[in-house]
């Protein structure tokens, strides 16, 4: 970022990016459809399951297939666990930026590790999961995994979030540093195309899981977390709320998950994708994650575009920072929650 300051006050700011650019989209056009699945893990390496989900939805829309029931439930469970992983680490890192160096993040990482253990059990990898397939998921849950997830969502997670809140939510330093900082009004948030917690903390109750449901999200009972001040503190609160809602969804999902197949048809190495365009999108932990795919009927996509929330949420950064102090810029950036693997692609 290049910032222009008057004394300590920001009067202008430009994000400068691209240092981690690897032309994801060009490589994605060379790859076959399935080869892109592990490649999406590398976008936002904190939430690879959500990335898989969005890409799988886009290609499935073109192919006109739907995964079987059990796979749908597994997908929702994984996507919501990913959201918890992302939000606890975001909260931890935000505190890092506020100067509470590495103590909160270690509390957060404790929960993250437990969830990553589940990811490792189902997919073989902690972070680069590569778990979703077109029309299903790669393999069924191993024995005992569902019990582990039950344990987490019914017994452990909500208590741990309570504990986190007990330490943080009314912490004087946190509130002083974050209340009224980096304010984005609802009109601005919409006009600047922000999504996810940034948009919802500004008082716009827009969540794709509700607004344009995908998968089986229309079956679950949950609230769209929304806060109204649009400052850093509200973005923190929205994330806490969302973790609680994710736990609610998870509790319903692990209760209802049926037995059955996990893949529609036979697993294929080379899928046949008819010509056309499709836009698959999910409410990722950071916002709307979209995949725009144009197919010409060949084994590789003609165009593969990633609508990256970390990238687009940076557009109003200058707006949020103007008039704030230099030290607050760090906090504001932390509250947007960007991952450079996705910003630069």
């Amino acid at each position: 970022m290049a910032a222009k300051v008057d004394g300590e006050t920001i009067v202008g700011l430009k994000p400068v990016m691209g240092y981690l650019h690897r032309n994801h989209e060009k490589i994605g056009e060379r790859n076959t459809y399935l080869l892109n699945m592990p490649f999406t893990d590398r976008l936002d390496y904190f939430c690879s399951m959500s990335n898989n989900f969005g890409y799988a939805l886009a290609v499935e829309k073109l192919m006109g297939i739907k995964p079987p029931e059990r796979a749908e439930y597994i997908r929702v469970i994984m996507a919501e666990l990913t959201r918890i992983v992302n939000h606890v680490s975001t909260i931890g890192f935000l505190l890092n930026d506020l100067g509470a160096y590495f103590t909160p993040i270690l509390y957060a990482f404790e929960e993250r590790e437990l969830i990553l253990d589940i990811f490792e059990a189902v997919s073989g990898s902690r972070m680069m999961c590569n778990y979703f397939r077109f029309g299903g998921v790669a393999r069924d849950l191993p024995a005992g995994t569902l019990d582990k997830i039950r344990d987490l969502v019914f017994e452990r997670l909500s208590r741990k979030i309570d504990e986190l809140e007990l330490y943080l939510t009314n912490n004087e330093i946190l509130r002083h540093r974050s209340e009224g900082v980096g304010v984005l009004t609802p009109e601005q948030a919409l006009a600047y195309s922000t999504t996810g917690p940034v948009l919802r903390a500004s008082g716009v109750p827009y969540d794709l899981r509700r607004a344009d449901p995908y998968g089986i999200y229309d079956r679950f009972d949950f609230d769209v977390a929304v806060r109204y001040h649009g400052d850093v503190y509200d973005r923190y609160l929205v994330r806490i709320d969302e973790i609680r809602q994710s736990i609610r969804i998870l509790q319903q999902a692990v209760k209802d998950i049926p037995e059955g197949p996990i893949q529609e048809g036979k697993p294929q190495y080379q899928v046949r994708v008819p010509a056309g365009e499709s836009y698959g999108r999910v409410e990722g932990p950071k916002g709307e994650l979209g995949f725009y795919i144009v197919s010409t009927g060949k084994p590789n996509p003609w165009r593969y575009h990633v609508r990256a929330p970390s990238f687009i949420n940076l557009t109003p950064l200058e707006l949020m920072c103007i008039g704030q102090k230099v030290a607050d810029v760090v906090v504001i950036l932390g509250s947007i929650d960007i991952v450079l693997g996705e910003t630069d692609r």
Partner: protein
Amino acid sequence: MSNPSIALETDLTHIFPDMIKSDERQGYEGYIVEPAQLVYFLTRLRDELGYDYLSSVTGVDYLPEGKMEVVYHLRKSTGGAPLVIKTQVARENPVVDSIVSVYPGAEFQEREAWDLLGIRFDKHPDLRRILMWEGFDGHPLRKDWREGYFEEDSKPFKSRWPDGHFKRSEQINPFGKNVDYPAGFDPETWIPEPETALYAGLDKMVRGVEETAIDTEQIIINLGLNIHPHTVYFEWRLR
């Protein structure tokens, strides 16, 4: 709960008969709008039909047809499926009106489309490369742009499959010859002009800041960011 099919059921060609036509290509959806009327059309969509939220802007290079297409996904903040709007221009020197004045959220996405596809957006407030650097030759997402180690358009490459032989990209593309620069560009003597442009952009963007009693001086600082989330450290560079 909104009805996700509303956007698809309403036929916008009745409302805007001379501006748009529906996209008839097999497997495609949405509408194609005349480039000249794009901004006017989107303004009316936003103000009259409630598409107040721009989801994504991107471009597609249709090399065989010689066309460059810009794709907009619009949404209503009250919910529903996205509305897909496209506009097509000639592939040679494509110019489309910028929609930043209607949807400010398009700013970075249009810069990205310019950077990667070479679509110029007229009246964009700050059209510079965003992901690539200025010493990069061409626009990499164009279908006729080829990387230095180019083998084939699509994987699996014949050199590697099914026999398993392959050449390392260093062999195809020896060190020292593996980078192309734009004509007239010499990295040794290059003075990063874009930084000047960047700082000039900062000057342009100065908005009303209250006058303080203290006599302060305006300086520019660079803040560096680690690649991993949030761990920001400072690198002060004063100008």
